[in-house]
């Protein structure tokens, strides 16, 4: 009898914990449901071809255009700048931490770097708008008060730890035997690092870079504060632009009535954002897993 109670309790607990895990599945399902159901309503009024090819985004004007390209352009410019900062710095730092730094240095520096990722994004936004932009203006006279450049640069700084820590993990997992083999053939440390360890860890490193791109695309507050609110079909990083995420913030702050076509644009933008980041995340996850299968 007592045994039965215990067995029942055990089963109950397992079921309960399973429910906790299923919550993640429900969350994903709910995200997709909310985005899809609102987007379908939107595409009843706007053709999907216009949405993908129109080069103007003016849902609030009397002459309405719903072309995602300007917002996509803004997102790509800021993402590109951020990646141009984060990937070289992050990778060099990962090689240094994994191959050159002593265990003690690594133990001190790694947690310090993580702090960069912990600073709230609204703080980075303030920094980009009121420190980096005025600083850059001294070198680039034509720079606008709001621009993609400083937002992208600061975003890049924020993403460095993501690139460096994940790439370092990948390099760290490369078996010692590969390094020792290269040393036995008379290689120097730099050759081992870049000709043996780096290529061996490449799929793990690629996973890190892809995840960084996804993070940059989805970053919201820095661009909402420092990059401006003018959807423009341009690749010029010196003028105000608007990213997909910044647009969502702009509409949320305004008093657009719920249920209108204008309001449903934030769900369509959310859908676009979700599709982009989801695709990148899945590729990154698969790459990382394949890397783990090879070495662990």
């Amino acid at each position, binding site marked *: 009898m007592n045994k039965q109670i215990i067995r029942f309790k*055990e089963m109950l607990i397992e079921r309960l914990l399973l429910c906790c895990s299923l919550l993640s599945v429900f969350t*994903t399902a709910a995200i997709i449901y909310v985005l899809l159901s609102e987007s379908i309503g939107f595409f009843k009024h706007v053709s999907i071809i216009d949405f993908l090819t129109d080069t103007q985004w003016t849902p609030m004007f009397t002459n309405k255009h719903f072309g995602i390209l300007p917002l996509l352009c803004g997102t790509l410019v800021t993402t590109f700048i951020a990646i141009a900062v984060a990937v070289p710095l992050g990778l060099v730092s990962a090689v240094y931490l994994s191959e050159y730094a002593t265990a003690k240095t690594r133990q001190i520096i790694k947690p310090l770097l993580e702090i960069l990722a912990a600073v709230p994004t609204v*703080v980075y936004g303030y920094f980009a708008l009121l420190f980096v932009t005025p600083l850059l203006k001294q070198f680039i006279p034509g720079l606008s008060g709001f621009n993609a450049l400083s937002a992208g640069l600061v975003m890049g700084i924020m993403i460095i730890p993501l690139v460096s820590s994940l790439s370092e993990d990948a390099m760290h997992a490369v078996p010692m035997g590969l390094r020792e083999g290269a040393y036995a053939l008379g290689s120097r440390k730099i050759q081992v690092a870049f000709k043996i360890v780096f290529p061996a860890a490449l799929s793990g490193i690629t996973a890190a870079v892809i995840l960084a791109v996804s993070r940059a695309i989805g970053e919201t507050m820095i661009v909402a504060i420092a990059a401006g609110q003018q959807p423009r079909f341009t690749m010029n990083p010196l003028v105000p632009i608007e990213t997909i995420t910044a647009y969502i913030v702009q509409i949320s702050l305004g008093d657009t009535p719920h249920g209108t076509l204008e309001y449903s644009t934030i769900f369509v933008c959310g859908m676009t954002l979700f599709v982009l980041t989801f695709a990148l995340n899945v590729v990154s996850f698969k790459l990382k897993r394949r890397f783990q299968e090879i070495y662990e």
Partner: protein
Amino acid sequence: MSSRKLDKKVDSAFKFVGLAATLFGLVVLAALVVDVVSDGYHRRGWDFFTSFPSRKPEQAGIFSAWVGTIWIMITTAIFAIPLGIGSGIYMEEYAKRNRWTDFIEINIANLAGVPSVIYGILGLGVFIRLMHLDRSVLAGGLILALLILPVIILSTREALRSVPSSIREASYALGATKWQTIRHQVLPAGFGNILTGVILAMSRAIGETAPLITIGALTYIPFLPTNPVAFNKEIPYIHVSLQGFFDPFTVLPIQIFNWVSRPQKGFLADAAAGIIVLLTITLAMNAAAIYLRYKNQKRW
């Protein structure tokens, strides 16, 4: 110069290049802190903490913002911590390796990478429109709970994975059931690392702005959520109310964002002062997490 010599030079040069690249981010962080402190330090003083937002920058404060932050954090913790740890335990201790588990795992990994603003849109669709929670503390807390859930799950799993299986086996050998083993052996052994993950997740939630803006969390809130406990002179002297969870709120990062987007110089100083407070909280939480992780580096 022979190529061997060149290699040697490149090798020793890289040591500096690598260190410089590693420290670059920290230099920028230092510049950020100096910039914010020099912009905002003169707003120091208790009245900044005890004043509501105002139209006059010199009188504006963060009273409703920091109280709101505490409300939101408590709500987030109530939901995210048990659900996250429970899910982590299931995935690590119970789940068998099969397609289903794989599916849940990919789901969690993907949720960890979903942009935070999407969680705001999710909240808008589910908590605001479907459940009519309005722009309440409960809605905000639930959104942030969903947002940090993957972080807690992943760090719980990692913490449990580092507990050696010999501990579990010893417990089974003494006749303990699975749950008894987890409850009395595995969880206590992994507690420090789980706590580290929870603190890091909460520090992330404190700084989140975008998902709360998306549900339309108002920026001008010159009042506090209803006190959960009120005292009065009549029996039973004490009045407990959950009304606060359904009241509108503002939080520190939203208040800061609101001030940053105003043109007047005075509000920028307020924003900087708010950032000093927010940054102090996040950095303190991260320092605590780093210390805990360092202390718990157990070698089994």
